[in-house]
Structure formats: C-alpha cells, structure tokens
C-alpha cells in the first residue's frame, strides 16, 4: 500500500473506502480519489500501452491531459483516469493491450522500432498491390483507444442557452479573482473550472496557497457567481458564442451550455511541459505537477526514491514535498545551474535510475521533471489571436486580445499570488465594464427589450498593469532523443528525420508524423515539436511559429453535443383516428401521414367505384388578400391569372428564375380581394418565402398580405363517383348541382355543421372529387361525419399511396419526382400554360428560350407492352441495343384500374413521339419494351370522370 499518512490538503475521505476493479482485479480506493490516485495507491504502475510500439506507460502528468492515462470504464472508452473521480463498482480496464497491459504481445513492434520511423507506412506495402487489403486489416488492429459498446443508450444529455455578462474560463487564483471582481462590479458571472474544485495550482501548493484558494472560492460563492466545476469551456466561436460542457450535473449525464458571453475571460493557467530525453516515457518518469498532486491531494506515494530535474520553483517544491512525505530524494538536478539530465535508465516497465550530464548514474524509481510550461492559448486562438514565443520566458504568449475576450493568469505572465490575483481582479473589473457597454448596446437594439437610459458607454480602456515574465531556461530536448508525442509514439528522432525529408514546415511535419494529432491535441507536444523543428531548420522557435489550436479545448462526447434530440413532427387533426384505425404511416418531411390502411389497391378500386376520403392536410395553403393579389399571381405563375372570377379555381405552375419548375398547385378566388393558394406539401414553406421575397424586395408597393394557413384547415379530399352524394349529405348551404358548382370551382359553406369551410372541385385523382378545407379545430369531427354519413355509399379512407397511384393513372406529375433540378416547364408537358405575352414573370426569359429548345427531355406517359411488367421508378431508358441513356422512368405502378403497369418518364426527343417503342432496363438487367402514349393520362384521358 502506498497511501501516505494524512496530508494537510488531502481531498480523500479516509472513512469512505470505495471498491472497484482494475482489469477484473478487486481493489479499494477512497472517496475523493481519482481513478489514477486509486490505482497508484494500489501499487499499479503500468496503466496503458503506447499506440505504435505498445510500450508500457505510467502516469506522466497525472491530470486530464495525461497521454498515458486513458482507460475504459464500463461502456465509456478513453476515460481520463487522472481526472475522473473514482466511483463504487467502477470496472476499470486498460486499453490498447493484449492479452494484458503487463504482457502485451504487440510490444514486439518496439524491437523493430528503428524501421518503423514516423510515416514508415507510406514507404512500404506498396507492392504487390493485391496484398494491401490484407496488410490494412492487420494495421487496423493497431487502432488505439477503448471500445464502443453499440448497446450504449443515449441517456439524458441536455443543453441550455445562457446570456451571461462574463464567462471566466478557469478557476485558479486569477480566474477566481476575475470572477469575483466582475461580480462585485455588478456583472452576472459564470465561472467554469475544468477540475472538480476551484483553486487551480493552489490546491496542491502550500498551506498558505490552500488557505488563499479557499478564501477566494468562498468569496466567489458569496458574490453570487455561478460556479461550474468539472466543466470546461470547450470553445469560443463567432461573436463570443461560448460552449461550456458540464460533466457533473444533478439530472443530466452531461449538459452543454451555449452562452452568448458579453465578455469572455480566459484564465486556464499553464500546462506543464514534458522534457525530451531517452527513456522519458518509462513508467516512473513524472512531471512535477503530477507528483505534487499525488502527494498533496490524494496522499499517494508515487515512488520510493526520487531524482528531481528542476528548472523552476515547481520542481523545487516537488522535491520539498517528496522529502516531507518521506520519499527519499536522491538528487536534485538543478537545470537552472546548467546541470543536465541525459536519460532515464531501467527496463521497459519502470525507471531504475537517471543518467546525468556529468556522467553519474543515480538509482531511483521516480524521475521528476520540471522544465517549464505550455500556454494553452486555444480559446484565444479561436478568437483569432496568434500567440508569440518569448525566448526569455521560454513559452508562447497571447499576442493581441479582442475587446471582449480578455486573458489573465499564467497565460499572460508570472507573478506572486498577490500579483496574479491583482491582475485577475483588474481583468474582472474591465470585463464587467465592457460587458455593461455590450449589454447597453444589445438592449438598445432589441425590439422587445426594455428601453435603456442614456447613451452607450464607451468601451472601457484596458489600463491593467501587465504581469511580469519570469526568465526561464529554454529546455526542450536533452542531448538524447526521446518521446515528443506520447499518444502517437513520435520521437524527436522521427521529427528530425521527417524534417530532413522535406516535411519541414510545422503543418507538414505534423501531418507526416501525426505529432500533436492524438487525444491530448498538442497540449503537451506542440511546443516540443516546434522546438525540434526549429533545431532541424537551424531557426528559432519564433521563426518556426506554432500550429493552430482547433476546438474543442477538451474532447466532448457526442452525447453532450447532441443533447435532447428535438425532431419536430407535424400531424393533422385526424391523426388520432388514423392511429386508431390501422394506418401505416409514412414520414414526409416533418409530417407523419397515412400511407395506407392495409391495401392501397383496394383503396384505389373503392375510389373508382364508390367514394373514398383522404387526409390531405399537409397541402400548403396560403391566404392572399388585397387588391394586388392578381399581380402577384401573374408574377409567380407561368400562366394567365387576370380573369379569374370569384368562385373559380385555376391550376398553375411556378418556375424559378432559371425556368426550372419550383412548385404547382391550384389557387381559388374566394372573394373580390381574397384568394387561397395551394402548394405541394413539401413546397409549402418554400413558396411562402418565395412570395414574401417578391412582395418585400421586388414589389413592396403591391397592396396585399400573405398568411400561411396550412394547418388552420383540415383538408379532406372526397373522391369517387359517389362523392357528390356523400358531400350532399353534410352540406346544405351550397348548391352541389354540377351546373351550379362545376369542375374547377370553389364554394364557401358549412360542412357537417362547421362554418367557414371551403370546398373546391378539383381532380388530382382523376375522379369526381371535392376537396374540403374545414377549420382544423373541427377536422376530426368532419372526417368522422363523412364516414358515418357515407357508410351505405361504401365510403372508405385512402392513403397517400392510393392517391399516388390514381394521380399516375390520371397522368398528373409530381414536382420533384417526375421533374428534377433541370426540368423547365415545357419539358413537363405544360408548354401550353406558359404565356410569353406577359411581360414579366419569374423565369420568363429562360422559359422563352426553353420553348425553342428541341433537345430537352420531355415528360411522357409510358406503358410496357407486356402489361405484367412494372418497371421500378428510376429505371433507365436506353437506345435500343446500347447502354446509351435517353431517359428514365419517373413514376411507375401496377394500375389497379387497368390491371397493367403504367408509367411516366422523361425521354429525350425524338423518342418522346407518341407510339415510339422504348427500351427500359429493369433493375435485374432485363430489357423490356414500352410504348410512349399520346396523353399523360392512362385512365380517362378525356376527363369525363372528374368533370361529371
């Protein structure tokens, strides 16, 4: 057992043991432990295997970014074990190791490591080509990482929006001070801390550090700051759209907060940087922060005898902490004084000594390294900043802050605790003042907001005294080569070789070697990679520059990004009846519609012989009012509209400005200045916006209004030879006599007692039919009344499929199915509608030219010679005896009315001539002959039925 005696700052609760398993072995930790501290307390040293060489790895940084600490916990892969808190019953397993993390067969790769330099795979497995798939299968078994359990349910992940004045990313001393000062200045503040507690590096520091942290944290809570721990600002996007992922939440598994921050304060502190030297990835080599967290937070002994290589106060402090905890410190190697660390000695699984620059070999099982920091400038990069390297301080610094993105803390400089807190406070005050300016501007410009007093305050100037920069030796690589990217198994030697081959810009080097591409995304590796490249090019780090840090700042689960999945669905008022009566539904856009009720062919036959009713509520409906409606209709439809009488309905085709058919439908004139336009179901929203666009941008002078009323009405089509009889039974105030209410007419009246209903006689199905539009709050009532009143007439519901069959029998095309993205009006067989005598309408020039175009494919009705053949939709039509495509079947069904296959199709001239025999290639490759018909209609081309 390597648990120390109680330490003054420990966060573990010794009264609460927590049982868990490691690779199936039962172990016990303490409440407050991370998985890492619990494993270490149980004597585990090797926690993972590296990606390429399967080298044994132990904890290096002992924090979220530890490249060696990824484990599988239950169904959760790639869990950061030095960050995730231990929970009772956790099943923790090592990843990337077979058969076990202690004995991994793929470690054999390490033996041939000198041949597997970075990018080696580009240079081999080239010949023979046919073997590559086999190689690939083997290589892919080397994919690192955990495993996905495909049965993982999508649990309650959640999201919310927020509009805070100030978001502070980072709960260390500067971040806490900033949050506190901003809140005291009256700002609404959200403070986000990646770790489980506020405090940052103070938490594993001295007694005074901890006291200061506790005091600040208490003050922050007191000031009303919203504190989110175990949470991360994962990105800063356009206009301060800030993503915060909350990993600990009382209700949700995780919650993504999308905050429009008026000001973002970036205070992530610094990330300790590894040192490149031979053996630097052996278990037992740790950074100073790792050691101090083990000792001071979790009271865990990371080793028995330590060598400490230190270039700064943190290294010195680690040595002191080790000594105090009773770990023998064999040697403190002072890098600042020019002493060197050459290599870590020992076998693959543990360190057993350190070789120093003076040649001495000192035995140890813990080699502590403290050579400086990486500034995680990600959030500033996302705001457009490009960091600059300062050789004196041996790290990158932000270059220029935005007005509403401020930085504080270690990211921008060094200082005593007081200095950091002062800078944080000054930043918080500035943030609050700038947020007030932004809030004023927002409120003043927002229509619904409370009127705001006075002029917008000037953006407060930045008068913060800058933090100093402590000199620090530039220590990146020793005289030996070692690991630069631990996650990707990329060494400094690999980088030098790649640079020598010509991959000598930072981006090319990164791409070729995959350095910085692994799970820690460069947080540990970038600066060392840049340093090695600078060495290769004989340039300075500043000249080489750095790579762009891309979001997210920390990996984020797909669950959190998805949150609750909102998928709106639309239903008509009749939906409860459909569901209670055996409907087979179909999803059409957001609509759930009746596809059929068991037998679409029977539904068709019933419509053709008796009467059927179908729910067509999704049909788009636009209420048009005003004296200038006819001008709009002339503008949008290709055909003539000026002489539409009150009570009349007309079919129209709309084209886009390129002449391609956009939509079609009928529009009826309900009153002098009142029209109802119908659109296709899928085109309803597009047409509405199209109308608004014309009215607002091209013709604001037209006096008319458009209002979408699609679901203000429940729409029911009553179709079949007995439809008039059925409608007559429910309508008393409209004369249904065909002479009084003829084909393509509209009437207003009461249906089954429901006033304000429209009925129009149109015939998409080719039958005598009445389309009833009744106020939606009574739609179900009317539907049930129709069924009750027509029982003796054989009334039965029909669905979308029966409707599609009947319209195909009648030869009516469907926009988007029988037409496509290139079909102009003449090609769809409606050339006769296009009225070029109108000086202007949408698409007019293209249509004028298209009318003269003899080459465009035409839509024609087609019937296979063999009536039993029913080509599938999209079967191709080819020139006989060749594979040359001259058309395709766009719609096809077995007609229940005719007992044969009927089709619509697009065919290139001259094959569109009636009587032409076409070769249709069936999906099974057979070729069948079909004939072009003279009319689009297969059934009742004269229109006797629908005009009856």
């Amino acid at each position: 057992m390597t648990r120390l005696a109680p330490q003054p700052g420990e966060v573990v609760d010794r009264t609460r043991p927590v049982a868990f398993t490691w690779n199936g072995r039962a172990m016990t930790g303490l409440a407050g432990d991370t998985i890492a501290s619990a494993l270490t307390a149980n004597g585990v040293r090797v926690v993972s295997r590296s990606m390429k060489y399967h080298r044994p790895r132990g904890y290096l940084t002992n924090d979220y970014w530890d490249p060696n600490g990824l484990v599988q916990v239950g169904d959760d892969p790639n869990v950061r074990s030095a960050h995730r808190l231990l929970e009772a019953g956790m099943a923790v397993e090592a990843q990337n190791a077979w058969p076990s993390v202690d004995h991994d067969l793929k470690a054999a790769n390490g033996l041939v490591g000198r041949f597997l330099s970075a990018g080696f795979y580009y240079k081999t497995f080239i010949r023979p080509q046919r073997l590559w798939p086999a190689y690939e299968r083997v290589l892919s078994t080397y994919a690192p990482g955990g495993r996905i359990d495909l049965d993982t349910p999508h649990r309650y992940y959640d999201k919310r929006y927020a509009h805070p004045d100030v978001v502070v990313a980072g709960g260390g001393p500067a971040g806490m001070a900033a949050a506190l000062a901003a809140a005291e200045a009256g700002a609404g503040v959200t403070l986000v801390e990646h770790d489980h507690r506020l405090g940052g590096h103070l938490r594993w520091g001295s007694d005074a550090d901890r006291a200061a942290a506790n005091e600040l944290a208490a003050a922050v809570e007191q000031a009303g700051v919203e504190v989110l721990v175990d949470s991360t600002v994962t990105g800063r996007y356009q206009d301060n759209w800030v993503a915060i992922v909350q990993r600990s939440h009382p209700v949700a598994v995780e919650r993504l907060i999308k905050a429009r921050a008026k000001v973002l304060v970036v205070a992530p502190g610094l990330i300790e940087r590894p040192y490149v030297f031979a053996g630097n990835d052996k278990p037992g080599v740790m950074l100073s922060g790792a050691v101090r967290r083990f000792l001071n937070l979790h009271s865990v002994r990371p080793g028995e005898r330590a060598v400490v290589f230190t270039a700064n106060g943190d290294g010195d402090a680690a040595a002191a902490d080790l000594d105090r905890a009773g770990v023998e410190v064999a040697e403190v190697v002072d890098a600042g004084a020019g002493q060197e660390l050459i290599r870590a000695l020992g076998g693959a699984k543990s360190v057993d000594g350190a070789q120093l620059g003076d040649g001495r070999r000192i035995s140890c099982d813990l080699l502590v390294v403290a050579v400086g920091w990486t500034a995680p400038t990600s959030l500033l990069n996302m705001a457009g900043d490009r960091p600059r390297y300062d050789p004196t301080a041996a790290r990158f610094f932000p270059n220029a802050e935005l007005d509403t993105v401020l930085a504080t803390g270690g990211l921008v400089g060094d200082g005593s605790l007081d200095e950091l807190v002062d800078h944080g406070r000054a930043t918080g005050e500035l943030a609050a003042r700038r947020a007030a300016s932004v809030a004023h501007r927002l409120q003043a410009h927002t229509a619904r907001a409370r009127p705001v007093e006075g002029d917008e305050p000037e953006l407060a100037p930045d008068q913060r005294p800058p933090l100093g920069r402590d000199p620090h030796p530039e220590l990146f690589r020793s005289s030996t080569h070692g690991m630069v990217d631990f996650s990707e198994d990329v060494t400094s030697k690999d980088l030098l070789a790649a640079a020598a081959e010509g991959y000598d810009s930072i981006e090319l080097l990164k791409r070729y070697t995959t350095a910085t591409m692994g799970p820690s995304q460069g947080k540990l590796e970038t600066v060392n990679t840049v340093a090695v490249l600078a060495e290769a090019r004989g340039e300075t780090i500043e000249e080489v520059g750095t790579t762009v840090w891309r979001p997210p700042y920390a990996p984020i689960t797909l669950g959190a990004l998805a949150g609750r999945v909102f998928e709106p669905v639309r239903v008509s008022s009749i939906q409860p009846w459909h569901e209670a009566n055996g409907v087979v539904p179909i999803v059409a856009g957001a609509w759930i519609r009746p596809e059929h009720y068991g037998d679409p062919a029977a539904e068709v036959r019933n419509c053709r012989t008796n009467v059927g009713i179908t729910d067509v509520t999704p049909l788009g409906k636009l209420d048009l009012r005003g004296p200038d409606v006819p001008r709009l209709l002339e503008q949008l439809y290709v055909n003539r509209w000026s002489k539409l009488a009150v009570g009349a309905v007309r079919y129209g085709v709309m084209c886009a400005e390129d002449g391609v058919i956009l939509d079609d439908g009928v529009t009826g004139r309900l009153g002098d200045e009142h029209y109802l336009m119908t659109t296709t179901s899928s085109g309803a929203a597009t047409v509405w916006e199209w109308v608004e666009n014309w009215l607002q941008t091209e013709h604001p002078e037209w006096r008319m209004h458009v209002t979408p009323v699609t679901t203000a009405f429940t729409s029911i089509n009553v179709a079949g030879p007995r439809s008039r009889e059925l409608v007559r039974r429910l309508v008393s105030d409209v004369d249904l006599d065909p002479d009084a209410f003829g084909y393509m007419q509209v009437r207003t009246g009461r249906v089954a007692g429901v006033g304000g209903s429209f009925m129009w006689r149109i015939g998409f199905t080719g039958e005598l039919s009445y389309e009833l539009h009744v106020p939606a709050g009574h739609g179900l009532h009317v539907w049930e009344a129709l069924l009750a009143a027509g029982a003796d007439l054989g009334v039965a519901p029909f669905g979308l499929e029966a409707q599609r069959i009947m319209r195909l029998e009648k030869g009516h095309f469907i926009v988007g199915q029988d037409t496509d993205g290139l079909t102009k009006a003449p090609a769809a067989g409606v050339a006769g509608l296009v009225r070029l005598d109108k000086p202007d309408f949408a698409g007019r020039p293209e249509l004028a030219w298209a009318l003269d175009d003899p080459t465009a494919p035409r839509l024609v009705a087609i019937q296979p010679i063999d009536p039993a053949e029913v080509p599938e939709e999209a079967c191709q039509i080819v020139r006989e005896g060749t594979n040359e495509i001259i058309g395709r079947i766009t719609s096809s069904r077995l007609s229940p009315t005719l007992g044969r296959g009927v089709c619509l199709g697009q065919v290139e001239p001259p094959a569109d001539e009636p009587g032409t025999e076409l070769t249709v290639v069936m999906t099974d490759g057979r070729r069948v002959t079909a004939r072009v018909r003279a009319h689009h209609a297969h059934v009742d081309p004269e229109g006797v039925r629908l005009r009856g």
Partner: protein
Amino acid sequence: MERGQVPTFESPVVKQYPAGVGPLTLADLSHLAKLSVRADDDPGFGVGFGASRTDGGVLVCGQRPGEWVLLGSPAEVARVSDGIARSGHVSVIDLTHGRAVFRLTGTDASAVLEKVCSLDWSDPMTPDGAVASASVAKVVCDLVRHDVDGRHSYLISCDRSFGQYLFDAILDAGAELDIVVGAP
C-alpha cells in the same frame, strides 16, 4: 352530430395528462381566439413591434413589423377587431384554428425556456409584455411574456400541427423543475 350544430373545438393537444397543481405549470390555451391583423400602419392598437398591451380581455401583441396578433375569448377578440380602423390596406385573418397556444407559468418558467429557446429571458431584454418570435425546440413560435399575479408567465404559440410535439417538448424540458400540466 346534428347537421348545423356547431361541434366542440378539438385542441391539437390530444394526449391526456394528469392535471396537477404546482409552482410551474404548462397549460393548453389553444381554444383561445387568435386574430392576425396586417397593416402598414398601426390601425389604432397603440402598440408597436415587440410589445403588447391588454385591451379588456384581449391581449394585443405587436408580433412583427406590420402585424398584430390578438388573443382572447372569441367575443372579446371580435369586439376589438370591430374597432380596427380600416383605412389603408388592412387584412384581418382568423388563425384560431391555425395556431396552438400554451401558457407556461412559474418562477422557473424562464429556466424551462432557456433549455429550448436561444432568446435572452432576463428582465431587461424580455420585460413583462415583451413580444418575440423564435425557435422553441426547433419549432418557430410566437412568444409573449405576460406575467400572472407577479409570476413569470409566457404565452407560446406555434403552428397547430406542431402543437402536440411542442407541448411534450416543453414538458420534457421542465421535468427536472417539476413541471405539471395546469388547467387552461
């Protein structure tokens, strides 16, 4: 149903919910009369885009530039509608059957909304009476803050066909805050 008899109004919210009492409620008010009035200039409502006003039992909302939405009982809405000045081009469209309307009431009402809508619900940005339109759980809605007895309350209306979906989506969002379905 006898011919000529006016049937009862069917709400788009057809599911049955146990009626509850609590500090946070969602109620279905889809039966309210809704009238959209379109005009270039204010036809005498005395309220502009983004604001609302109560006229007797009718809530008059400046819903969009040139559009006012009236909410209330049919009789009251008719009374206000009859008084509209008809000079210039004015359109009056009855949307009673076209829109679902819900009322979300309670101290936590804003907390529910901020889970499903990106607008800023703070007092300065959305004071009592404020009118806006926005996406709620991915459905475009008209929203009015219309406090009741000093408690936050919002009227949310959407296209009727989305009514059931949206009602359930708001209940889902409010579940962690113990939302209950209130009486209309």
